[in-house]
């Protein structure tokens, strides 16, 4: 078996692609989480107009296929005179879509916390906003973690759509390489394994994080 194809062609292309993918995933994860916590919180505790806005956000960004969203940002916005780089369009698309899903987990987590705690906080002189931020959200984060972690794992894989708006990441590099050498089976198997590794790493990290922030008697019993 000739390994030179892997060392000469596959490895450098995959390394290039991997860094672009990581460069897409990390900021999208951060912006997505921020958006999700904001939208999810507004849906439960926002004033009516903000609540409505967050609802519409969730509906639209979970309703439009992600690929369609990316096409709108990259190919559609120039019609309005807004030109985004492929990278910017992809990060924006991923963040907005991911945030819409995170918001659902956050909403559920906030709803699961007994209202009495909000009342107790207010009885101590907390404003509603301060009570939500310093009493309810720290608990909601812990409850939302499994769901949000799942969404982060999805994000790793839907980052592979970035090449459709010409941002050449792992999958994009793989596609170019595979068609150049007509070795689809080999190349996509390697690229799949790299995603699998990324996902495994993320699951391990998320598990560690869940354990790290767990509070006795607050989450389900872990043995």
């Amino acid at each position, binding site marked *: 078996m000739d390994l030179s194809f892997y060392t000469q062609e596959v490895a450098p292309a995959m390394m290039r692609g991997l860094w672009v993918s990581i460069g897409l995933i990390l900021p999208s994860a951060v912006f997505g989480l921020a958006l999700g916590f904001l939208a999810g919180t507004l849906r439960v505790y926002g004033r009516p107009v903000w609540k409505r806005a967050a609802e519409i956000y969730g509906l639209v960004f979970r309703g439009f296929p992600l690929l369609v969203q990316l096409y709108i940002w990259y190919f559609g916005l120039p019609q309005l005179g807004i030109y985004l780089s492929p990278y910017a369009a992809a990060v924006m698309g991923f963040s907005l879509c991911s945030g819409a899903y995170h918001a659902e987990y956050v909403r559920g987590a906030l709803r699961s*916390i*007994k209202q*009495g*705690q909000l*009342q*107790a*906080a*207010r*009885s*101590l*002189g*907390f*404003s509603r906003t*301060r009570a939500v931020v*310093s*009493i309810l959200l*720290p*608990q909601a984060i*812990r409850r939302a973690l499994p769901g949000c972690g799942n969404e982060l794992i999805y994000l790793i894989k839907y980052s592979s759509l970035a090449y459709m708006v010409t941002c050449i990441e792992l999958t994009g590099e793989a596609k170019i390489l595979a068609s150049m050498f007509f070795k689809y089976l080999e190349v996509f198997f390697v690229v799949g394994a790299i995603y699998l590794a990324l996902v495994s790493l993320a699951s391990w990290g998320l598990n560690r994080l869940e354990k790290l922030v767990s*509070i*006795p*008697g*607050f989450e389900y019993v872990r043995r």
Partner: protein
Amino acid sequence: MTPPIPILRLADIHKSYAGQPVLKGVSLEIERGDIKVIIGPSGSGKSTLLHCINFLVSFEKGRVWLWGKEIDPANKPELYAYRQKVGMIFQDFNLFDHLTAIDNIQIGLVRVKKIAKRAARERALAELARVGLSEHAHKYPAELSGGQKQRVSIARALAMDPEVMLLDEPTSALDPELIGEVHAVIRDLAAGGMTMALVTHEIGFASALANEILFMENGVILEQGPPATILSQAKLDRTREFCAKIAHLHTGGRKPV
């Protein structure tokens, strides 16, 4: 001589839930050092009344004064300052589940009173010691018994330096053998001169502490007076009937001595 200004005064509080009236014009004055015990059947509006005093529920009509100054709930900074003066104890404790006992007390001091962390910690420890829970400072709510949780919640309220405490059935969610430790803490507060309004069904405990018992039914205060009068020689048949029933419950049918 002018009469003393009451710490708390409520006038003509009306509250309904979904068109169903719960409070139909309740007025009340609480003077410094008073211990008012509110009794009455479920659904009579006792708990709602306490929540109205603190503006934790909004009400359609009625006014509230603290030291003669009317509270305007639309004025938020004033409302938050007022709530610090009026401590509230809930039936089901409402501790913050993600915080240890000491942090439950500390968070209000740091976030609301803006006290430096170290000073807040000392104060929180002192309050825990006051309710006899120093050795449980670092336990989470789930690791505490019901009685301990309620004592932490009392410590948490006391840390804000309240001038009045509102206690909404503080022991009714507790196992019978844990009630005593919470009663002891409340008795200490009374001995320290704390002004209180207490909703309870523990009639024996209440009558020993109260300087006045208020009997509520159907959203109004039906009758009020010193414990001895209300419990044994109430004017209204309904009051006598209710008092007899709860006394019977607590003495197991024997005549109270």
